[in-house]
C-alpha cells in the first residue's frame, strides 16, 4: 500500500489549503495591503464598500477569487483563462500605482510566503517535496499570467498617452496653435511664444 500512502501525503497540502481557505486568504490579503503606508492600509482593510474603497475591495475580491480558482478543486487543473480575467483589473491598478514593476507583481509570490509560514505553524502537517513542487509550480504559472497582464497594462497606459499626444488638444495647448506661430513671425507684433 506504499502507493496509497504517498497519495494521501500528497493530498495533505491540497486539503490543508482547502480547509484553511478563509484564514490563508485573509493573511494573504493583509500582507498585500500592508504594502501600502500604515494609515492607508488600515483604511483599505477596514472599509468594505467597493466604491468607497476600490483598492481594498479589488485586493480582497481578486485574491479571494484567485485562491478559490486555484485550490477549491484540487483534483482538476486550474482554469488559467478564468484566473486571468479575475486578475485583470487588480493588476491594472497596481500597474499605475507607485510600485516598481517587481513590487507591483510581488503579491502573487506573497502567496508562497503566506502558505509556507502557515504550514510551518502546523506541527502535525508534513508536506512532501512533490506537493510543495506542485504548489510552487501553480503559483509560478499564475505569476506568468500576472507578468503578461502587467505589461499589457503598461502598454495600454502608453497607448493612452500617445493617443492624447496625437490629439489636437495637446498640440494646441503645449505648442501654441498655428495661428499664434504665424503671428510670432510678424515683426513688431508681440505675442506669447
Amino acid at each position, binding site marked *: 500500500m506504499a502507493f496509497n500512502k504517498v497519495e494521501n501525503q500528497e493530498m495533505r497540502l491540497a486539503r490543508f489549503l482547502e480547509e484553511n481557505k478563509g484564514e490563508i486568504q485573509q493573511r494573504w490579503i493583509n500582507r498585500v495591503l500592508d504594502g501600502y503606508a500604515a494609515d492607508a492600509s*488600515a483604511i483599505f482593510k477596514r472599509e468594505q464598500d467597493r466604491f468607497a474603497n476600490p483598492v481594498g475591495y479589488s485586493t480582497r475580491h481578486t485574491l479571494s477569487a484567485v485562491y478559490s480558482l486555484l485550490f477549491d478543486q484540487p483534483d482538476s487543473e486550474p482554469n488559467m483563462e478564468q484566473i486571468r480575467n479575475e486578475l485583470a483589473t487588480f493588476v491594472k491598478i497596481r500597474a499605475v500605482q507607485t510600485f516598481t514593476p517587481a513590487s507591483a507583481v510581488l503579491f502573487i509570490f506573497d502567496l508562497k510566503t503566506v502558505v509556507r509560514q502557515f504550514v510551518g505553524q502546523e506541527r502535525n502537517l508534513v508536506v512532501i517535496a512533490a506537493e510543495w513542487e506542485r504548489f510552487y509550480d501553480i503559483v509560478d504559472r499564475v505569476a506568468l499570467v500576472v507578468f503578461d497582464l502587467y505589461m499589457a497594462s503598461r502598454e495600454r497606459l502608453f497607448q493612452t498617452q500617445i493617443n492624447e499626444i496625437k490629439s489636437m488638444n495637446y498640440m494646441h495647448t503645449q505648442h501654441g*496653435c498655428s495661428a499664434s506661430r504665424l503671428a510670432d513671425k510678424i515683426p513688431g507684433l508681440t505675442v506669447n511664444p
Partner: protein
Amino acid sequence: MADTKVAEMKAKVVTEPSLITGAVPTGNWWEVEAIFKPGNYCYPAKKSIVEYHRKNLSGIFGEPRDWDVESDDWQLPENWQEIIIDGIKERLDKFRSLKVFMDCCVRCGACADKCHFFLGTGDPKNMPVLRAELLRSVYRNNFTLAGKILGEIAGARPMTFKVLKEWFMYYYQCTECRRCSVFCPYGIDAAEITMMGRELLHLVGVNTNWILEPAANSNRTGNHLGLQPHTFKENAEFLLDDIEEATGVRLQSLSFNRKGAEHLFVIPSADVFADPGIFTFMGYLLIFDHIGLDYTISTYASEGGNFGLFTNNQLMKKLNAKIYAEAKRLGVKWILGGECGHMWRVVHQYMDTMNGPADFLEQPKSSITGTVFTNAASTKMVHINEFTADLIYHNKLKIDKSRNDHRVVTYHDSCNPARGMGLLDEPRYLLNSVCNNFYEMPENTIREKTFCCGSGTGLNTNEIMDLRMRAGLPRANAVGYVANRHGVNMLSCICALDRATLLALNQYWNPEVEVCGVSELVGNALIMEGEKEREMDLRFAPLTGVEG
C-alpha cells in the same frame, strides 16, 4: 529634564494609534520626504510664459527662470521663506475663510478616505486632512502662540525647502473637487486651502506650464488654446458642415461678435475643435436653431474655463471679467453658458465678489418660455442645461428619444457644476427626456458625492498620465460597474475637462465606454424642421435600426 518630557511626548505622538485610521504610525508623517520622479510631477512653466504673466500682473508669479523640479536647487530667490510667510500673512488678513480653515479642523478624520487621490494612491499625504496640515503646520509655527512656544509638539514646523517640495507635490495632487468638504462636519473647503497653497507657490515662482500657458493664452486671445478670432470662427463654422451632413439642415443662427444679440453664449473653447467636445457644440447649435434663439458668440471671451482659478485670485478675476466686458460691449440682455466646469465654479462662487453684480445686464428670462431664472439674479448667467430643461419642461422641443437608442448612457456629475453650483437634477432631467437607456452609477459616486475625473485644475497634462489614472480610479471603478451590469457604452458629463480627461481614463480602465456632453444627446434627439431621414448621429455613427 524638560527635554526628556518633550522626547516622551514626541514618542507618544508617533507610536499611539492614529485617531484618523486606528493605524499605528511608523514615524512622523512629516519625516517622509517628497521625492520627484518622472511621471509624478507636472513640468514647470516656461520662462517666457512667466515673463508674460509678470508683465500683466506684477508681484504674484515670482522670478521667471528655467528650473528643474528633480534637482535640489530650484533657484529660488534668497528670501523665499520670507516671501511665503508674508504671503500667508497677507492671505490670512484678506480671506477670513482661510483663517477659519487653519484653526477649526479637529482632525476627526471624516475626510481622510474621501479623496480620489488618496483612494487611488494610498499616500497618506493625500488625505485632505494631512494635505491641509502641510500648510497648517507652517501657519502654526509662525502665527499661533502654541506653535511658537511648543513647536513640533503643537504640530508646528518652520518653512523649509522640504516643506516647499511637499507643497508642490501635494497641492498638485488635489483637483480642488471639494468632495472631502461634503463630509467635513465643519465645512472646511479643502479646495480653498489648495488654492492658497498654489498661490503661495506662485509667489516664489514654483509653477506648472500646463496651467500658466493656457492662462496666458486666455489672457492674450480669449481662449486657452491661443486661437485667434478668425481661427476660432472657422473652426466653429466647419462644424456646421458636419451638422448638415448628419441632419440635412444648414443652421443659420451662428454668429460672432454681433452687437445687439439677445444673448452672449460662452463655451469652453475645446468645444469648437476637440473631440468629443465638438459634438456637444453641435448639440448647442441645434438647440438654439430649433427654438430660433437670438444669440452670439464672442471670439474674445471665447473661453469659459478659467485657468486663473488654478493660479491666483487676481488672474481668476481678470479672466472672468473678460466675459462680462464682452457682454457689455455687445450689449446683450444676459449670458448663456455652455457645459463647462471651472467657469461655473468661478461664476457661482466668486464672480459676484470679484466682478459683480452685473447690473448692466437684465434679469435672465427665457424668451421662449417666460421662465425667470432668479438663481442668476446677480451673475446674469444661465447654464445651458438649466435653460434646455426649462424648454423641455414647457414642451418647446420636438424630440425623438429613439435616436439615442444605440447609446446606453450613464452620467458623471462634473465636480464644479455639481458641488460648486448644485446643478444635479437638470442634466438628469435632460437625459431622461432624450434617452431610453439611462443608468445611474452607485449612489456614493454621484451627485454631491461624485468622484472627480482625477485630472481637473490643470492636471490634465500627459506627463503625469500614471498619476491621472490612479487618481481617476474611483470614478472609473463606478463606470466599469455600470458598464458590466447594464452594458453602459456612453459616459455623459457637463465639463470640457471631463470630456478630454475621461476619454483617456476610459481608454485605460473601460475601453468600451465613450464620452459625450449632455447637449450632444439632446441635439441628436431633436427633430429639426426640414431635416432628412436620419441615419446617423452627430458622430456619424449609425442609429439603431439602420446599421450596416
